[in-house]
């Protein structure tokens, strides 16, 4: 898929834009854009998976069932309490080191590949953080919403799903936007496990030219993504705002 994107998106863009671009960028334009798309796709997938995970974890942490709440708390504690880099290394070099014979072909398909490991760890990581953001928003909702929901005939789960979480989600949007930006920056670390994301491509370009400008270009492209995320959440906030 990335080959196709390179061929049909990155190459034409660079072909058109290279006359007006500074030489360092123009020379590696296609590589930069290949990395850019990988980072974007990695983000879209890990934010989506992480959000679902976060909702489930927040629900579990708030539930009356002690066992569920404890499992969720441990998960959240472990992934928020260890560096993302360590998590990536353990999954890729640790679990990956058992090889295809040790893991079986299905697991190997996942853990033998830097890209899938990166996706899974980023999702688990953002899931743990976002769960705390959502839980905080739920706890801070005005009291009585749950009681009002129950008095209207709803079960706990239905009330959570229809009443509590939708409101909590609106509350926590600004904090959540921040978490997505943090995840975007953290995603640069997947370049250490052989993923050719924006950072991975940048390092390759640098290794060939040793010009500091290479990193400045990468920084500018990361800023563009951050701007995109911020704009996206702003418009979401505006659309969901009540009153």
């Amino acid at each position, binding site marked *: 898929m990335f080959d196709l994107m390179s061929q049909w998106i990155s190459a034409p863009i660079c072909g058109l834009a290279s006359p007006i671009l500074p030489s360092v960028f123009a020379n590696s334009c296609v590589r930069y854009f290949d990395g850019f798309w990988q980072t974007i796709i990695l983000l879209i997938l890990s934010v989506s998976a992480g959000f679902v995970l976060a909702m489930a974890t927040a629900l579990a942490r708030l539930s009356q069932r002690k066992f569920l709440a404890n499992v969720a708390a441990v998960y959240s504690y472990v992934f928020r309490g260890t560096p993302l880099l360590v998590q990536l290394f353990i999954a890729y070099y640790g679990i990956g080191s058992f090889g295809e014979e040790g893991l079986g072909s299905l697991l190997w398909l996942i853990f033998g590949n830097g890209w899938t490991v990166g996706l899974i760890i980023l999702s688990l990581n953002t899931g743990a953080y976002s769960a705390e953001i959502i839980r905080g928003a739920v706890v801070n909702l*005005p*009291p*009585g*919403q749950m*009681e*009002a*929901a*129950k*008095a*209207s*005939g*709803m*079960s706990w789960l*239905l009330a959570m799903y*229809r*009443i509590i979480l*939708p*409101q909590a989600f*609106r509350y926590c949007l600004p904090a959540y936007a921040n978490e997505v930006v943090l995840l975007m920056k953290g995603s640069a670390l997947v370049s250490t496990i052989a993923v050719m994301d924006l950072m991975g491509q940048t390092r390759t370009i640098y290794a060939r030219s040793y010009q500091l400008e290479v990193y400045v270009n990468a920084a500018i492209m990361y800023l563009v993504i951050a701007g995109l995320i911020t704009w996206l959440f702003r418009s979401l906030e505006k659309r969901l705002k*009540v*009153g």
Partner: protein
Amino acid sequence: MTITVENLSRNFRNFKAVDNVSLTAEKGELLALLGPSGSGKTTLLRLIAGLEQPDSGSVIFEGEDVTRLDVRHRQVGFVFQHYGLFRHMTVTENIAFGLRIKNRRERPSKSQISERVQELLHLVQLDRLGQRHPDQLSGGQKQRVALARALAVEPRILLLDEPFGALDAGVRKDLRRWLRRLHDDLQLTTIVVTHDQDEAMELADRVVVMNRAKIIQAATPAKIYDQPNDPFVFRFLGAGSAVPLLFNTLGHWRSPKMALGGEVMAMLDRSERARQAAEAGDQQLDLFVRSHQFEMMADSKGDWRIRFAALTGRSIRFEVQYIGNIGNIGSIASQEPPSLNPGAPTPDALTYEVDLSREEAEENGLSLGTRVTLTVKSGLLFPR
């Protein structure tokens, strides 16, 4: 539907919130639970709704024991003090919600739901505001939406927790009357929690006065006011105070500091309670007198002086202070207020509130600083 509560108790750790309470609300009756904060009235309401579980006792709806039934199966309409509206939904969605989430067999069709919502919006006089969000409504409007939402699911009973507590005086009064009319139309058994005496008196068929986790008295507003069964009820409903009586050598209960009117003296002579107190050799008997049950006359030799006067609309509220002989405590013959005498009893113990009409006050030439005599026109005795 009849609601019966039997020997209901609920503790929060060591605090008794509701202590062995029994009560019945008749079909179609509007009950007001009245009491100071912390008296257990809200907890009792929440126990009836099922939002709270009792430690012992039972809640019975029309003969059916619902004590262990979850709130969402009790079919109660509950209105919260702070409305508890779902803020991410419009008014219409709020009202329709209870109907939409019913399981398929009980759920009305879409058109039936929207018809019912329109009816309810009309009932609470918010026909045009269906598309607004709760944040765009005033307090009074929000509370009416909350009521419509509670009524949407066709509850068997309606429970309201300080429904008008967060609203200003004018709106409260309007909504109170409106709620009463609504109740008369719907004939739904209704219980309202309030700490506002006027609200309880005006709204309810029967007022249930609570204090310290117990019901003190449950009766019609008129009876609660005219025949309170306890000093607490007397004090809680309207201004008034206790006048201590002493047993004199002639065998009568009399006040050493003020005169008693003929009606009061006749009442004391007839009273079983006064006779028992005398036989028991009691030192003192308290006569409970409302502030409008005093008579006050200007008298330059009077034992009392007006030390405060405030207009409260049609009448004037006076505060009169005892300045005569400090009765049985000693004979400090002083013209000065006792508060200036070291060792004298606190002035508060010897002041009474007296309400007079403005005309009466003017006729008698009563104003700040005037010396007066006090006469008790009528009063009440309570069993010990």
